[in-house]
């Protein structure tokens, strides 16, 4: 059980180690196809917008997913609606035509003619880059969809010039002449629009203009950014939060623009092949994006790179980077285009193999891999000089045909981290109990660490324990694993872990019990012995109980430290905690509501009695002052008392003591004043009565 746990742990370490060296780029594969058909889902046969519909259809087309028929009817309907409407914006027309280029809906040539005339007018008068992009893009699409319609631009040179005038000296573009910020994303759009102008031009565009544009592209590629693993991408320099484009969409825009421009111009654009390869690695390196827009950008850009005229990137990939010597695994290397189609005839060479220990010296000589036509892979038996361990293999791709070198980008050498695993031999394992003073051997036991052992040893504090063994690789070299631990575990679950060191060729540890009695807390009794030997490249890593040793240690002195309380099971630390049950005070028994209400009524009885009594006594308000001023004071006095009582009720219901005291203070002063006035008035009237 424990052994299995450790095995799982080692697999985990291995997996992590491989992830860290993730510079292996895999071409587009079936996992992309299934992810694609899940990402683009239409609601009842139609997409939210034609732009989304185009992105879905285009991705399906590239990945070879046949889903057209499901969405054809609804989408074609909205395409025809958009194209037929005379108020559609250039952007809507653009995406409608793009969808139509894939679905081939039935659209009347008359409609195309009307749109073409409108778009030409827009292209001639446009001032913003997006207007140029959409109108010219649409015209190019009409040209492809209908041969009857005249889409050629009479003033191609003028339009070319007005788009070019938005360009910046560093190869980037502005979105419009009144917007000073330049953008890499816009550069991609501009290149695509310009390539459209070139293909629509009724007369040839001036070659010098195209030449300057080519040097603009080279300048743009100077600003490409690079990751450590060779992936390259474009990013916007100005962070404009409103129209911020992600590095993915920026790079995709540039790739689309570059490939479109390269397709319409003669002569090559001197963008270095490794930059194109770096862009391809960037798109492949992001894996499978989680949202539809990113997915489309990735797949569409890779499709543009797949057949571009600048340089077609070839991706070297390894199905497995862990090679087992015991299973006689062969090194398998595939070279494909980004979408996974086969590469032209080529040879893969293993140039160097750097052991992770020594970064400089190569352990092998340069070797060629053998090509297997059936699996379209290049194979090589693991060279004899490559022992178990962790290596960096350096591959080089050499194209057979020198003409191909102009078309393809192989990117020179590719570094791949490779793990070579094997079964490690354990030899001369023995465990010995020695007499401390003389060094004479008391007991000596051979161990078979490959199988089960159940040793029974005994020792006292004057003796020593020595454990030793040798590890050798399948090629007979000494092997030093990451982890070699010896664990002694007392009956009371007190554990002691020792690191087994390497001395010479042997792994050896000597436990001198005299020096360890304190560490062992003077605990005599049986200790289980467990040995751990583990490494990522060691196929037979183990964690094994090899028996027990009965230790006879001296009695603990008074001051000796107590053994620690056994640690709680470490896994329980992360497990669910015991549920806390809250105990509330049991609510007091309340009387029935009826009884309380009856008594509430009863409480009013004396009050009624009081009022009735007042009536019977013939109480009157004749003494209430009649003249205006004292009457006001009298009323105010009673109002004041009522206000104070009302305040008390509020105090009971919600106010706190301080607010109440503040108000009581204010009301008190008022009450004192009016009370004094009215009462002294009363007193003076009664005194007058008396004297009269």
């Amino acid at each position: 059980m424990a052994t299995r746990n450790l095995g799982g742990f080692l697999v985990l370490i291995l997996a992590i180690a491989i992830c860290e060296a993730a510079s292996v780029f895999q071409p587009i594969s079936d996992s992309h196809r299934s992810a694609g058909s899940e990402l683009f889902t239409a609601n009842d046969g139609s997409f939210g917008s034609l732009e989304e519909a185009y992105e879905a259809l285009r991705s399906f087309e590239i990945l070879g997913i046949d889903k057209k028929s499901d969405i054809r009817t609804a989408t074609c309907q909205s395409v025809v609606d958009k194209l037929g409407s005379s108020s559609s914006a250039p952007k809507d027309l653009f995406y409608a035509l793009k969808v139509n280029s894939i679905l081939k809906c039935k659209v009347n040539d008359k409609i195309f003619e009307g749109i073409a005339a409108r778009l030409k007018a827009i292209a001639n008068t446009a001032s913003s880059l997006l207007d140029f992009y959409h109108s010219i893009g649409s015209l190019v699409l009409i040209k492809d969809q209908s041969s009857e319609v005249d889409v050629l631009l009479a003033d191609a040179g003028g339009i070319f010039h007005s788009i070019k005038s938005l360009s910046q000296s560093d190869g980037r573009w502005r979105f419009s002449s009144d917007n000073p910020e330049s953008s890499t994303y816009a550069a991609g759009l501009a290149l695509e629009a310009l390539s459209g102008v070139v293909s629509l031009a009724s007369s040839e565009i001036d070659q010098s203009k195209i030449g300057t544009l080519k040097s603009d592209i080279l300048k743009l590629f100077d600003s490409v950014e690079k990751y450590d693993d060779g992936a390259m991408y474009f990013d916007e320099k100005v962070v404009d939060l409103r129209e911020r484009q992600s590095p993915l969409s920026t790079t995709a825009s540039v790739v689309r623009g570059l490939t479109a421009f390269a397709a319409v111009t003669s002569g090559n654009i001197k963008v270095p092949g490794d930059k194109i390869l770096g862009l391809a690695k960037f798109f492949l390196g992001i894996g499978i994006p989680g949202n539809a827009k990113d997915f489309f950008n990735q797949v569409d850009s890779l499709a543009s790179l797949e057949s571009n005229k600048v340089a077609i990137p070839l991706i070297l990939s390894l199905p497995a980077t862990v090679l087992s010597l015991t299973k006689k695994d062969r090194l398998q290397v595939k070279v494909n285009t980004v979408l996974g189609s086969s590469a032209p005839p080529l040879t893969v060479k293993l140039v160097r193999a750097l052991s992770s220990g020594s970064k400089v010296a190569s352990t092998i000589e340069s070797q060629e891999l053998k090509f297997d036509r059936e699996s379209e892979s290049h194979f090589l038996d693991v060279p004899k000089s490559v022992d178990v361990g962790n290596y960096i293999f350096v591959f080089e791709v050499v194209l057979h045909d020198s003409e191909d070198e102009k078309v393809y980008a192989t990117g020179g050498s590719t570094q791949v981290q490779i793990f070579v695993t094997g079964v490690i031999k354990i030899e001369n394992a023995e465990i010995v109990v020695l007499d401390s003073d003389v060094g004479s051997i008391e007991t000596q036991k051979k161990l078979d660490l490959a199988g089960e052992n159940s040793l029974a040893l005994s020792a006292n504090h004057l003796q020593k324990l020595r454990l030793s063994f040798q590890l050798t690789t399948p090629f007979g070299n000494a092997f030093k694993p990451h982890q070699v631990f010896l664990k002694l575990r007392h009956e009371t679950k007190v554990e002691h872990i020792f690191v087994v060191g390497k001395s010479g060729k042997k792994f050896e540890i000597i436990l001198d019990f005299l020096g360890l009695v304190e560490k062992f807390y003077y605990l005599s009794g049986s200790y289980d012995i467990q040995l751990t030997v583990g490494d990522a490249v060691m196929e037979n890593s183990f964690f094994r109980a090899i028996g027990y040793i009965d230790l006879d240690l001296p009695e603990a002195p008074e001051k000796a430290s107590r053994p620690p309380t056994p640690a709680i099971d470490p896994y329980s630390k992360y497990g669910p905690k015991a549920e806390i049950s809250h105990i509330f005070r049991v609510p007091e028994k309340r009387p029935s509501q009826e009884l309380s209400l009856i008594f509430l009524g009863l409480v009013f009885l004396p009050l009624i009695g009081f009022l009735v009594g007042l009536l019977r006594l013939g109480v009157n308000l004749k003494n209430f002052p009649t003249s205006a001023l004292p009457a006001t004071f009298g009323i105010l006095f009673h109002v004041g008392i009522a206000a104070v009582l009302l305040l008390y009720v509020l105090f009971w219901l919600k106010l706190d003591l301080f607010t109440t005291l503040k108000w009581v203070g204010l009301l008190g002063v008022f009450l004192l004043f009016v009370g004094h006035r009215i009462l002294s008035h009363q007193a003076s009237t009664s005194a007058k009565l008396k004297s009269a």
Partner: protein
Amino acid sequence: MGKASTSSTTKDALVLFDSLRSAYSATPTTLKIIDLYVGFAVFTALIQVVYMALVGSFPFNSFLSGVLSCTGTAVLAVCLRIQVNKENKDFKDLPPERAFADFVLCNLVLHLVIMNFLG
């Protein structure tokens, strides 16, 4: 004999009550009002005590504040009665208005405390 004595005791008591009533009817109306008020307060307190005896004294502070409010105000009213009564020579110089002002002030202070204690 027994019967005669019982009837005579009843008669005596009636006579006593009559004399008390006639003596009391001579009391000024002001004092009667105060007496009525005291009776009202005491009865309210009594009803609360009976309720407590039936139900238990769980919100004890509420019970205390209720009863003390009644007894307190009754005591204050008795004090007022002493001061207002003209036959009390000790307070001859004290005008009844002043006594009433004291009564109002004391009641306000008492009820502030009661409200605080009510819970």
